[in-house]
């Protein structure tokens, strides 16, 4: 079973986000970028499937500029077998990303696509579902457990009401949630080995994918600051206030 896993290069989760004063976006100079944490979990899961003898090959793919090669090298160092970069300097929104991934799926014929449930930059949470929709495949989003059994997968999903288990036929798209696994630490010799693993770069234009309708970002602003409210004098007054505001 071939597994395709998508990785996005994002501003590191630990970076304090600062909005540019002209509203054109967030500051990225001097900022650390790393693999989207949910994607890291997806890569880890793919590698565990391979280690368990359930997957035969893990292909990591990314879409973006040359710097994404670093992100793909991290996936290779974690244990992916090969990597594919669809190169573009354009902003890629989820629908377009899904179409690109669909194209790669058609070329590579994986039986499972593992993606992070969302990227921590745009927080869109769309690409896995869109890809599944475009392919007409089953989708199992927000996965916290994945068990492959022949041509089906049992996936436990973290939904608002609790833990939902789905059974889906393969091929399928699965998106990872935080509790699916804890990604491994990359070993130094594996970083060296990763430098010798195949990493193919394809120009987006060569895939001949028609442009999709997209959403325009007019401006980016800092979230409003919270202000101090009222002070109450006693426990009784606090309870009364909470009741008045329908909070209890």
């Amino acid at each position, binding site marked *: 079973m071939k597994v395709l896993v998508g990785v996005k290069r994002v501003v*590191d989760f630990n970076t304090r986000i600062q909005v540019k004063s002209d509203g054109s976006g967030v500051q990225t100079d001097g900022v*650390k970028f790393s693999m989207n944490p949910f994607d890291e979990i997806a890569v880890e899961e793919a590698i565990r499937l391979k280690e368990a003898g359930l997957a035969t090959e893990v292909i990591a793919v990314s879409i973006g500029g040359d710097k994404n090669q670093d992100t793909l090298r991290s996936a290779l160092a974690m244990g992916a077998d090969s990597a594919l970069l669809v190169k573009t300097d354009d902003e890629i929104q989820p629908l377009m990303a899904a179409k690109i991934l669909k194209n790669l799926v058609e070329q590579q014929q994986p039986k499972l696509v593992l993606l992070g449930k969302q990227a921590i930059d745009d927080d869109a949470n769309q690409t896995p579902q869109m890809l599944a929709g475009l392919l007409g495949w089953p989708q199992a989003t927000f996965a916290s457990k994945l068990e492959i059994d022949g041509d089906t997968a049992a996936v436990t999903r973290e939904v608002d009401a609790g833990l939902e288990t789905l059974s889906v036929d393969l091929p399928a798209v699965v998106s990872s949630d935080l509790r699916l696994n804890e990604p491994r630490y990359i070993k130094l010799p594996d970083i060296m080995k990763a430098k010798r693993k195949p990493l193919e770069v394809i120009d987006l234009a060569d895939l001949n994918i028609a442009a999709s309708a997209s959403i325009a970002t007019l401006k980016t602003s800092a979230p409003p600051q919270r202000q101090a409210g009222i002070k109450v004098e006693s426990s009784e007054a606090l309870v009364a206030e909470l009741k008045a505001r329908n909070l209890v």
Partner: protein
Amino acid sequence: MEANNNHQNISQATTDEIERDEMAFDYLIVGAGPAGLATAIRLKQKNADLTVCVIEKASQPGMHSLAGAVIETAALDELFSDWRQTPPDVWVPVTKDEFSLLSASSKTPLPLPPQQRNHDNVITSLGALVAWLVEKAEALGVEVYAGFPAQQALLDEGRVVGVRTGDMGLDKQGSPKDSFQPGMDLKAKVTVLAEGCRGSVSKQLIKHFSLDKNSQPQTYGIGIKELWQLPPGRVTPGLVQHSIGWPLDTATYGGSFLYHLENDQVAVGFVVGLDYQDPRFSPFEAFQQFKHHPTVKPVLEGGEIVSSGARALVEGGWQSLPTMDAPGVMLIGDAAGTLNVPKIKGVHTALWSGIYAADHLVEQADSAGWDQAFRQSPVAKELYQVRNIRPGFQYGLWRGLLNAAWQTLTRGLVPGVMKHHEDHSALKRLSEMTQRDRQWVERDLPPRDRLASVYFAATEHDEDQPVHLQIADPDICTSRCAQEYGNPCTKFCPANVYEMIETEQGRQLQINAANCVHCKTCDIKDPYQIINWVPPEGGSGPNYRNL
């Protein structure tokens, strides 16, 4: 995994039962700062066939790097011919220097000391410079691995044969978690320690080989820095401003810097000599007070902090340089202590020491003779010339300034070397110091407190890992130290790592290790020398942005 303040442990690698991966290189460099990267780059330039590995504890090179930073660029000319077309991301040529004396309410211009003339120098960010150097190093085939701290030196029959990287995935008690990944042994013909000020492996080996037996004690300062984004129109790109005086008393060495960058940014910072005496003194608070000086506050007000951090720096100069080699190992840059204090610059000397170290290795293929080679270099002459300036400030600001003028006039030709004392021994007991009124003001500029400052440092440590600030005897903290010094760790730490908290069992020391910004001040200034800073899990620590 051992507590390495016991130096006998450091060679006992073989007794460890965990099976560890091993890799070998021609040369191994610990620390991706200016010194280590200059060595790596020069080595590969001179002999492309060499295998050169640089390891770095930060999650990404540059994330732990902090300096003023106004730098001299000749060392870059030495390394690269065409670098000026594509300089580092932060690069503002100095246009004007100002030096002044502050009182609580006023500012008096002082004549510019010649060492502080910055014509031809450039304001940069050490983080940006490091990122830039890493790209050049990797292009030459240097292997740079970030997120891998050197935990301990590996010794074989009295020779350093490499380092062991830190274990990953240990829980708070030191037991392996599911994700456990043992550190590995990296071996090399020569290991070059470029850890920067108070490097943890350097500290082990200086002790092990008694490299400091012929030198004066190393002395240090703490530098705290913030990068600010200001409303448009306030900055004069290229303007370099330094001050001495308020908020420090005349017995305390230190001063401020305010560097005007492009894009409405300024780098503002404060350096305090760690030989200060008052156990109640807080360098962090002094810096925040400086920002509220009537001539400084209007610059910052209404702006926002982009990033903040702190780092100890070496101030001992020439006479504190330890022997810079031992079998299989070389010390370079601030791991040895090459900073030029009167110039308040260490980046160029670090770069040069890295270049010389590489040249030495290319010629000798061994560590032996490095100490001698360095001491004959132009940088050593530069340090020798100014050797007696900083020590004069032990006698207070005014005598220090007079001495500095004298030393400058005589170009350091008057023979003799002034002595240093260990910084921690300079601290006076509470009973010996009356609490002074420092005329400090109510603050309203950010950060509100040290925790807020840590937030701007974006420091991150997995909470479930062994505490990397090892206290040899915590009882001292609650008994003797509380009485004699009032727990100065709770004051000198710029990241609020140390707190004394009231519990039902009485007062206890709480170590907020996750706040640590790796400045090493505690390891230096603790009066009982019972704090040992060891590297936490690889990739932990601050994530500075252009500091």
